[in-house]
């Protein structure tokens, strides 16, 4: 389906060009891939706040800081900066279903995930593409089990997430260099995990009854990164930033309910072969290890989520 309503730019979209002299002239000055400065088990700091959109029943805003490269000497062009993650979520409902809709004994959850056209380096279209629809389905899966739907028969709730700034799938330098890398959309994983967390906050803000607040977490098996460790052996990192890793072997995202110790959504991408086992893993259990780590990441996100909701409650109670 093509977008007939707008006059769109070229579908590929472009950033400002970077001329080769910048890249090639001085090896020192050539832009370098950002490196992961965090420990493998450390998450990025998260900013989460509810009540962004006053007109919605519930809303939340989530932000993951951009990874900085403190000792980079590369030219400070805006187009070279790496982005973090910025999501805003609005929840509309519970509200009555339209009259035309058939009877439903429980609430009908609709999720809608959309990248803003400017969210990623590669421009996105105005209509939802398959990636975005995929994210929507995953988000719905993650949330459906959390909401106590029986309390709202004949009603619907819409969760709408706009990705203002999305995680890159790979470092932009790889695009330029034409280096063949794994073309998988690794950025999606972080985005989905953020989506789950921010949707959870917005649903809580809307006052919809849930069994628990669900938090998203990502873990990835990456090959050889910077700090100290030997570069060959793959290792598991929490909350990976795809631009920081040259080679991501596999990634896993979970929607996790800490209170009930349940997973509502699990998605693994990539393949862990025999030779890609991490150092300290037991053969055959790598995927489980990945999932466990993702759960750990979700626990971290959960803590921030709880703190944000506490803050919301305090503000609300204070006002009342």
């Amino acid at each position, binding site marked *: 389906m093509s977008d007939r309503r707008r006059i769109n730019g070229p579908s590929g979209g472009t950033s400002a060009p970077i001329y080769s002299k910048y890249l090639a002239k001085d090896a020192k000055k050539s832009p370098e891939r950002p490196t992961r400065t965090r420990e493998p*088990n450390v998450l990025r700091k998260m900013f989460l706040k509810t009540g962004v959109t006053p007109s919605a029943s519930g809303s939340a805003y989530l932000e993951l800081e951009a990874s900085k490269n403190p000792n980079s000497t590369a030219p400070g062009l805006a187009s070279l900066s790496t982005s973090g993650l910025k999501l805003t979520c609005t929840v509309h409902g519970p509200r009555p279903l339209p009259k035309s809709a058939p009877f439903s004994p429980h609430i009908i959850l609709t999720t809608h995930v959309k990248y803003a056209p400017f969210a990623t380096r590669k421009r996105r279209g105005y209509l939802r593409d398959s990636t975005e629809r995929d994210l929507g389905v995953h988000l719905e899966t993650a949330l459906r089990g959390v909401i106590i739907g029986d309390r709202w028969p004949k009603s619907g709730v819409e969760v709408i997430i706009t990705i203002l700034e999305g995680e890159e799938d790979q470092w932009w330098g790889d695009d330029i260099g034409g280096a063949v890398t794994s073309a998988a959309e690794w950025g999606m994983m972080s985005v989905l995990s953020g989506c789950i967390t921010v949707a959870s906050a917005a649903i809580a803000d809307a006052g919809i009854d849930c069994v628990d607040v669900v938090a998203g977490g990502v873990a990835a098996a990456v090959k050889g990164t910077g700090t100290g460790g030997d570069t060959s052996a793959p290792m598991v990192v929490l909350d990976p930033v795809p631009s920081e890793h040259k080679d991501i072997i596999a990634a896993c995202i979970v929607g996790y309910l800490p209170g009930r110790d349940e997973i509502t959504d699990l998605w693994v991408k990539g393949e862990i072969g025999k030779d890609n086992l991490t*150092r*300290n*893993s037991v053969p055959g259990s790598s995927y489980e290890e990945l999932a466990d780590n993702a759960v750990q990441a979700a626990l971290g996100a959960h803590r921030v989520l709880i703190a944000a909701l506490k803050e919301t409650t305090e503000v609300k109670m204070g006002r009342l």
Partner: protein
Amino acid sequence: MSRHKIVKNLDLDDELDDFDGGEDYGYDEEEGEEKMRQGTIKVREALPPTAAHVTDKQVQEALWHYYYDVEKSVKYLVAASVPTTPKVLKKGAAGKKPEGGFISFGVCWSFGQSACNKASTLAGALYPDTCLKPFSFAEFFKDTPWLQVPTDRQTVFIDPIYPRLGLLGGSSDGVPKMSKLQALAAARKKKAQEQRANSNPTGEMSRAGLDKIDHSDLGDAGVGGMAPSGSALLQKPSARGFPLRKRKGLDEHESLPKAPVAIDDAGLNPPASPEDIPSAGQAEPSDFANTMFGSHSQTPRQSPDNLFTMPFAADIASIAANPFAGPSPDDIVIAAQSKAGKGGKGAPKSNGEKKAAQIAAGVEAMRIDDTPRAKSKHLDVLAEFGKAEAKNAANFVVIGHVDAGKSTLMGRLLYDLNVVDKRTIDRYRKEAEKMGKSSFALAWVLDQGSEERARGVTIDIATNTFETDKTSFTILDAPGHRDFIPNMIAGASQADFAVLVIDANTGSFESGLKGQTKEHALLVRSMGVQRIIIVVNKLDTVGWAEDRFTEISTQVSAFLIAAGFLSKNITFIPCSGLHGDNITRRSTEPAASWYQGPTLVEELDNSEPAGRALSKPLRLTIGDIFRGGVQNPLSISSRIESGSLQVGDALLVQPSSQKCFVKALEIDNEPVDWAVAGQNVTLHLSGIEEQYLKIGDVLCTPSNPIQNVKQFTAKVLAFEFLTPSQIDIHRGRLHTPGRIVEIVAVLDKHTGAVVGKKKPRVVKPGLIARIVVELEAPVPLEAPGRVVLRGNGETVAAGLLE
């Protein structure tokens, strides 16, 4: 068993047996004391030496318990005193029931007392001496900033004093008496607690224990500042954040390395209290987020010093103590207004009163119209009419070709008879000159409509009345233009005789004879008009030429006789409408001296009154419907065709078949009690709504109503070729579309016998035929009625109903 049955079966005596309250102890005090003294002595004697240390009090107590049974008391005292004396003491103290009751009450009372004291001291501290003088809120809130009451001025809430839990008058040891169920529950709880306490050290799987571990683990991981490398984590394999998760290979996984979550820079912090943990992972909002959430939340509103105090609060002393004591400013204004405007008419009506008055007025206006059914005087109208000896009344219609000068002639007639005064004519003259039509001024007496005046032609029938010495006349000024023939028919149907106006101008006469002069003459003849006066008008323009007059007379009389008029009923008068010659006065023109006949008015007077169909049933075709004023919302005007009516009569309207009543009658704007055929009356009706009345409808007596017909047979004189086709049927004001369905036969003009073949296809002009006409809607028509058939804007036939 239902509860009320339990209550029903309750044996009160049985229940009260258990009660060991005051009644049992109501013995005589003196008697008891005596008994006790004697009993004590007896016991002392009976006590063995081992129990000699027993006090009198103990003895008395024992006695009291055993109802002064000495033997039992001794036995008890011996048994009690031997092992441990204190036990006896204790038991004795506890056993004294009446005392216990008193004591417990005392406790209660003292608690209450102390509480009251406490309360009063509290109150005293809070309100040191405010109770002595009345509290002034104005003073209290003076210089308090708006919406920012400082904390020291906010009120202090004190918890109310509740009585202790439990029942009043409980047991002696101060603990409230528990019911059996309560006791049971408490016992279970205690038991459970004990059990838990015992099992705690060993029960590793219990939830509580694991929760603790969980928390400490999270705390360690998040804030502990341990260098979390993989190898280090290997040493604490049991550190799990999700204790309840069921997994298949528990043992295997326990050995897995854990990468517990740590949040970026939290690792550097020293261990903090658990409350700090959640905030560890939170980032500061980015610049972008700050634009969304703003910075106002970070800087709370503060510094009440900057806020304004209420301006009037500064001058608080000047404000009256009770601002609502006197009348409000509004009250003062209203009072003044009512005094000034209404002149002591009392207080102005409030909104509600006004509304009520309005509604009452509305209801009054709405009231069903019950008064107007005027009582009939049951007059014998015909006898009255005979007694009245009124002047003759005559209607005449003025017909002629367009621009023959009909209206001008009538205007001149009215002007000369002083029906219209000179001022009015002068005004018309001025206005007509303004429009460039000065010659039309006289015509405007009858042509009242603005369109009629602007176009210079008469459109609708205009009526006016004038009186001569003998007769009162009603002029029906018919339009001459061919487009308004239906209106002319309506006028002609009411006329007793006709005045045909002919333009003497060269050419005009000839065109008129071909045009409406001829058509009108035929029409009035077919409408039953017998007598006709021909006014040869505008003879001044041809210099009063006698030749011209004679020529016209010859031609017209020949035509009229052919049309069926008798020659004795035809009169010719040479006139000048514009100048007024030979209308009311003889012409002074020397050129006109050849004419010595009567003037127009004289000739009108000569006309015999037409016979009135007084004894026939009432028929009245509505000429106009209007609102005759506030009293008479529905009025009609028309000429009574036949019969008579009087006030109070019930009438039937056809074709709607609705009944109505004559509320009042007017003739020439004079209220009358009755009216007869031939008179132009105004009827004020009641008991009917306007929607049932239409111009052209017929009013008749309910006893002898006119029938609505859908089809009729008529004997008609054809003016044009007549074939079965669509036509309009005119009968006075009434006109309705219809169709000639059949031509039955052509008839002989004089004998009325059938001529030629039956059912001819066409009727030639000038022949008489019998035709069947079907109407689209039923209309009131009856036998001797005269109808005119028109098609395509021309009169095709006229005739009589059969």
